[in-house]
């Protein structure tokens, strides 16, 4: 009985201690209460009611209690001025009391402890977006359309500055300040968010008219119109328009998307149904569940953001066996790409609440990328064929990706040949089909890409009066020549090696005899394909008849892949 009495005593005492401790942590030591006490103690002026606070947004099914600790961000509260945690929310496009917090920031709105609310706990798959990637939160609802490639965006930004727009306007915290001498400055509105309402189509005309009026002495503002505004050529206006359209109050986010549209990521990755199939679909990569993520190859903190950044630094280290090449990106580029990846998080929301851009992207066929040739090339082709069409070689053991900007190639390749190749791809090789059903590009977009390709080589296609098929050479002679001169690179069976596979039905179907003939005769400058028409120190020149024999021999492979 003594043992039982002891057990009873100590169990009861233990239970009592635990219960008292639990009661204290639930009440006095509650984190949100401590936060509010801290604010109340440091708050000059009116007293602070210490209470649990929440923003309820029925439409978004959000009940966000974040403001129980971030008390300065609660409607009607001031908090501690300039304090990032307890101060007011910086001015942003959306009003926090209308949108709540989690719609943009992620995390667990109903939680009232720091770790739970920020989502850094087991079983909570959507932690908060880390502070330096906050603007990724826009991607929860928005899908930004017609974003140009990085270079186009950069051109627009430079022009904007060159034309001295910053003299009057303020954008992302720059410009619109006092002019030298102290007089004037900041006459124009802040246009950091002009993209959200749409750039007015007539801004140039209005500016120009005002300038003329000012010159005529009309009271429209006087001096600035005359000294700070001049005529702008139409193509420059277009670039400036594109830049302004990207100003949506989320600095960095559209730059990130522009970078995504310059590195050719969509060549392998689908996003929103458009892109290649070699890599995983990226449409929801921003909502990756950290609990289901393999962090073994990741150095540093175990967050999805760091996982992504580490993955860009060295894909194979983070994902063993990954096919993705190390792209040799700079740290700022990695930072931008990580931001963009985190923004790919379209949350499930009732369609009635979708912003216009998302409706257009998902329902009305709106494009996320600008549809000029340069952006399309940057978005889909640049990763493999190089930013300037110079070709790429990631894996020394594999054949390089063709240099499609090569002038020798562009001189002999017809537009139909290029369109055909892009649309149907090269079955059996890495080049995927980009037609609407496969890669998701529309015919007019493919024509834009081809037009852009022409500008890369700087040459036009030489006119070809001959029919598509005209070679009538000697097959046996062609076979002997192939074995002697071609097989070392293209393989004895024509199945490829260092050079590309010629025994390819799609290639042989779309290539004309002239194309094959001229390619052999001229070779490809800057590649290992020599000009067989002129020969080289190790290769005697072939006569036109011999080249025709070769072409005739190649044709025998048609239909026998």
């Amino acid at each position, binding site marked *: *009985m003594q043992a039982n009495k002891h057990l009873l005593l100590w*169990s009861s005492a233990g*239970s009592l201690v635990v219960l008292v401790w639990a009661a204290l942590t*639930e009440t006095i030591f509650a984190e949100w209460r401590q936060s509010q006490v801290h604010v109340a103690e440091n708050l000059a002026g009116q007293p602070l009611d210490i209470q649990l606070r929440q923003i309820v947004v029925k439409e978004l099914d959000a009940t966000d209690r974040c403001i129980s600790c971030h008390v300065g961000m609660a409607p009607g509260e001031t908090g501690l001025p300039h304090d990032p945690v307890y101060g007011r929310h910086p001015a942003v496009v959306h009003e926090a009391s209308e949108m709540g917090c989690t719609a943009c920031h992620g995390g667990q709105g*109903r939680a*009232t402890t720091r770790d739970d609310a920020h989502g850094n706990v*087991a079983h909570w798959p959507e932690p908060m977006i880390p502070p330096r990637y906050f603007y990724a939160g826009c991607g929860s609802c928005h899908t930004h359309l017609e974003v140009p490639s990085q270079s186009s965006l950069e051109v627009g930004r430079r022009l904007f500055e060159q034309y001295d727009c910053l003299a009057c306007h303020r954008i992302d915290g720059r410009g619109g300040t006092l002019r030298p001498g102290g007089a004037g400055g900041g006459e124009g509105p802040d246009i950091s968010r002009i993209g959200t309402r749409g750039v007015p189509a007539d801004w140039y005309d209005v500016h120009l008219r005002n300038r003329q009026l000012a010159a005529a002495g009309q009271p429209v503002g006087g001096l600035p119109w005359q000294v700070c505004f001049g005529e702008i050529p139409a193509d420059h206006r277009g670039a400036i328009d594109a830049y302004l359209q990207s100003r949506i109050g989320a600095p960095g986010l559209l730059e990130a998307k522009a970078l995504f549209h310059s590195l050719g990521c969509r060549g392998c990755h689908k996003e929103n149904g458009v892109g290649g199939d070699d890599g995983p679909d990226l449409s929801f990569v921003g909502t990756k569940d950290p609990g289901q993520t393999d962090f073994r190859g990741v150095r540093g903190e175990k967050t999805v953001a760091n996982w992504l950044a580490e993955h860009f630094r060295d894909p194979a280290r983070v*994902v063993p066996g990954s096919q993705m090449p190390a792209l040799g990106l700079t740290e700022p580029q990695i930072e931008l790409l990580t931001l963009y990846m985190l923004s790919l998080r379209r949350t499930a929301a009732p369609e009635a609440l979708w912003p216009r851009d998302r409706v257009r992207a998902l329902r009305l066929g709106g494009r996320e990328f600008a549809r000029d040739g340069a952006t399309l090339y940057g978005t889909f082709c640049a990763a493999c064929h190089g930013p300037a069409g110079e070709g790429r070689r990631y894996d020394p053991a594999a054949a390089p990706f063709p240099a499609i900007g090569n002038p020798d190639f562009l001189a002999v390749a017809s537009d139909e040949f290029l369109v055909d190749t892009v649309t149907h791809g090269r079955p059996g090789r890495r080049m995927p089909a980009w037609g609407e059903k496969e890669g998701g590009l529309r015919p007019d977009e493919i024509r834009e890409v081809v037009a852009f390709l022409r500008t890369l080589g700087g040459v036009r296609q030489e006119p070809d009066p001959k029919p598509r098929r005209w070679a009538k050479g000697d097959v046996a002679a062609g076979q002997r020549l192939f074995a002697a001169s071609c097989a070392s690179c293209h393989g004895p069976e024509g199945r490829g090696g260092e050079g590309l596979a010629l025994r390819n039905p799609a290639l042989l179907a779309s290539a004309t005899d002239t194309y094959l003939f001229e390619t052999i005769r001229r070779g490809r400058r800057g590649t290992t394909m020599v000009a067989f028409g002129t020969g080289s120190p190790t290769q005697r020149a072939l006569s036109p008849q011999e080249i025709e024999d070769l072409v005739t021999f190649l044709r025998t492979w048609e239909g026998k892949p």
Partner: protein
Amino acid sequence: MSGLPTETDGGPALGRFADNLKRIPRRFLETMFRGGRPDSDRGRSNFVFQNVFLHLHSVRTHRWSLKWSTTWGLGMITLGSFLVTVVTGVLLMFYYKPYPDVAYQSIKDIHFVVPTGHFLRNIHRWAANIMVVGVLLHMARVFFTASYRKPREFNWVIGMLLLPVTLGLSFTGYLLPWDQLAYWAITIGANIAQSPREVTDALGITQQFDPGGLQKLILLGSDEVGEEALIRFYLLHVLILPLVLCFLVAVHFWRVRKDGGLARPADVDVRLPPPERRTFPVFTEAPAKTYSLAAVVKSRTPAVGNPPENTVPSMPHLFYAEAAVFMLTIFLCVLLSLFIDAPLKEIANPLVPENPAKAPWYFLGLQELVAHSAFMGGIGIPMITLLGLALIPYLDREKAGTGLWFGGSGGGRLVAMSAAYGLAAVLVVEAVAIRFGWLQQWWPGCPQLLIILLNPGTVLTVLYGIWSVWVVKRFDSTRAGALGLFACFMAGFIVLTVVGTWFRGPNWEFYWSPSQWPGH
């Protein structure tokens, strides 16, 4: 009665009133316990049988029953954790709303806003888990001490009913938070309920006869887990199953009392050490008759004619023991709840399956078998096991070893050997299934009926069966066979549960650790 004046004392009415007022606390206690202070043997007896809650106990308790090693308090731990779940559960019901999505939000509110709600929910969850563990260990204790034997056969069968009711209570509670964990665990459970369809499909008679589909429909009230399922599970969890459990528990306890208390070995008096110094009087006379039914009909109750009884008054000996174990249970619940939170994932989403979707831990051993054959793993083998367990007392009619740990032919050595055999068998079968796959992989066109008959679960059952038959022959004892079989099944249950819990990842593939789960 101290020096206070009694009511017969004279004096002015106001004085008497003041005296009565002063006496209230003492009088209140006296009226609450009819026999007054239990300071004599008679008073202690009165204390028990005059009290509606205590009179389920015998007035005197055998000293053997009070030894810690007799029961390890496992039944009391189970009852205690059940009472804790009842109290915390009722409190949770104030805030819980059984409707999809709203349910999830109300759990979030309980967790984050309701004062102490988070703590209460943790306690509820931990108590439920302790109850499941307690029930399983209690069953093992009763089995290994051969306490199911005459006259306790029927009570063992009641216990076999209490086991699935306890698991059912825990399982129905699993859905209520309406998070991903809950939703997909219950989806798995419902598919197991549907698994007889595997057999009817293989026979091609599902169109005419579909008990599996009906079972799932009854459970979910729909084809998939939704609002109908939630309200059903809620009702089962808070009303039907607790009532069934209370009813069965009442019978269970009544029978413990009527079957003569806890089982003891025949030579119990030799085995007991001398009583502690401060023990209340030990009873040593064999009663010639008892004053219950024996007084009105020609019969004997279990108490008649037993040799010197070696009993002590239940008040206070038994009640201290029970109170101690009860408080220990509460201490365990609150301590675990302080440090380990009940899980809550994101809101249930029927479009995004959890991968892996896992049932509650106590079903993961079965889920491990379900991966091969839903019917055998989910219904066939559990039914065979439960039925086999329920029949044990009717098959083992031996006398040797009752009331002793691992009592009976073979003893502890046989149990150890059987556990080793059971362990080896389950490890080999699992290793083969994990390393080389099973019939489906070896012979892609294999008929489903063959897989139902021949899968790791049935192979294991047959291996264990063969062992037990061999043991029966070897020791010439049914009890030995039962010991062997039980030890085997225990080893199998533990290994399968461990594998299912910690070594299964997405698509139920084998992984040494969750950090190896593919994340790309």
